[in-house]
């Protein structure tokens, strides 16, 4: 069924938000359309000559956009680049932020990193519980139909593959007789 809509009413509909406390309190006719949100101070024209914090010491490898000559005064150290994904990330940072080489390489690195993560878990003696990580407990509780559907589809595909493989093998045997 299609929902119909009426044109703008001249007077607000009863119960509309026009009755809320604070209605119109922040209306600003000068904010139309490009009243600057920026509190312009001219600081833009001083460029990079502003007071800076002390420099955080670099304790881990930090990749740096080639669109800036220096590190920022503080930075995060969450996960330094490592492994094959790390090599790709270093390569990505040779390109500017305007190029696909930068971002698509990083996405590729992310995908490889996910596999490295599994290998890393195994190395540390943890078998990742991928179902739990994907929140299947919640899915089972709130979306059971969908879980059953997906499991059924998975089972059907597996069955089809197995059947195909068995028949293929059987066929080959017959031929070789």
């Amino acid at each position, binding site marked *: 069924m*299609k929902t119909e*809509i009426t*044109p*703008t009413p001249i007077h*607000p509909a009863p119960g*509309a*938000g*026009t009755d809320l*406390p*604070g*209605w119109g*309190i*922040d*209306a600003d006719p000068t*904010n*139309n*359309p490009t*009243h600057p*949100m*920026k*509190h312009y*101070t001219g*600081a*833009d024209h*001083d460029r990079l000559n*502003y007071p800076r*914090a*002390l420099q*955080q*010491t670099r*304790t881990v490898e*930090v*990749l740096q*956009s080639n669109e*800036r000559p220096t*590190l*920022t005064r*503080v*930075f*995060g150290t*969450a*996960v330094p*680049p490592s492994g094959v994904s790390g090599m790709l990330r270093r390569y990505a940072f040779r390109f500017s*932020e305007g190029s*696909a080489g930068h971002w*698509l390489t*990083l*996405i590729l690195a*992310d*995908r490889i990193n*996910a596999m490295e*993560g599994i290998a890393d*878990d195994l190395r540390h003696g943890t078998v990742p*519980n*991928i179902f*739990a*990580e994907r929140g299947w*407990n*919640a*899915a089972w509780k709130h979306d059971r139909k969908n879980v059953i559907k997906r499991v059924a589809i998975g089972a059907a595909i597996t069955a089809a593959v197995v059947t195909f493989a068995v028949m293929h093998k059987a066929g080959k045997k017959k031929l070789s007789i």
Partner: protein
Amino acid sequence: MLAMNYRGPFRVRADRNRPYPEIMHPRDAIVRVTRSCICGSDLHLYHGLVPDTRVGSTFGHEFTGIVEEVGEEITTLKVGDHVLVPFNIACGTCSFCQQGLYGNCHESNPEATAVGGIFGYSHTAGGYDGGQAEYVRVPYADVGPTIIPAGMDLDDAVLLTDVVPTGYQAAEMGGIQKGDTVVVFGAGPIGIMAARCAWLFGAQRVIIIDHIEYRLEFARQYAKCEAYNFRSIGDPVFFLKKATDYYGADVCIDAVGCEAAGSAMQTFTGRKTLLQAGSATALHWAINAVKKGGIVSIVGVYGPTWNLVPIGNVVNKGITIRANQASVKRLLPKLVDHVMAGRLNPKELITHRVPLEEVSDAYHIFSQKLDNCIKTILIPPRAEAAA
């Protein structure tokens, strides 16, 4: 300590063996988290759409907490202060911060110049660990963290770190005038808050568009706006034109971002094959449904490469596009006032309170929009006792 640990697309877990964060700069603080939300932005990370999201990261950019330790230059905070922490990491002195653009700080993210530092938001946003953890390192602790006013509910406080300022700024950037018709795309927490805030600027009519019925119903109640399901209105642009005497809305707000549904072509190229930086369906509709000379305000997040949008219509219709990451610190004084005066009641958006240990399930529920979920907060162990 206990913290969320990202393992790859759609895979996160609660990990008890994460290292306790350290002070790395004299303007740092360490905060013990008392509330931490999951945001629609986290879903872009969770779905593997944000470049340089490294395995082993901790997400979370919306949190409150108690100051545990301060760096030697911090004089504005002391151990034991209960603070809300804006999601932007900002130095306060660069030319951008000086002009109120705290979301665009030049001294918080070495890895990209196109986005400022954000807690727990990939290495593209600075490589900081986030607040879905027991403890978190807070850089520039003399700029962002704000002591929670006496009498303010913690659940309200945590929503002041992102949802309220982002929704408010979406409306503010719309340049809404008294009497305007405002269309908000997306009835997630951000869109609902934007719709609610549109009234503060004097909107005459507020319409919200989504395709999830329970969210539309929630928006109707909470934001006192009209709400329509784009699956049952035919062509949404035509529908909105008709609703506005074939004139177009005065203001359109994109509160959906790069995971928009509603167009097979956009979904295939943007979400399935990454030929563009996410699907731009809502933005496309916003540009086409706004009046000539109208304003399109974008807070929905898109990736850094490129998107398919009708830019020719932007030119020919003389549309102004305004967009940014919310500048939380700039807006806080006004928004604290709105919350304390009861003009905004953000905590009503919270539908789920989940122990941090169950973070995998919490992500799944929010991502798949199950169990009537609007907004989820994660609660670290010991936090309830502290609060």
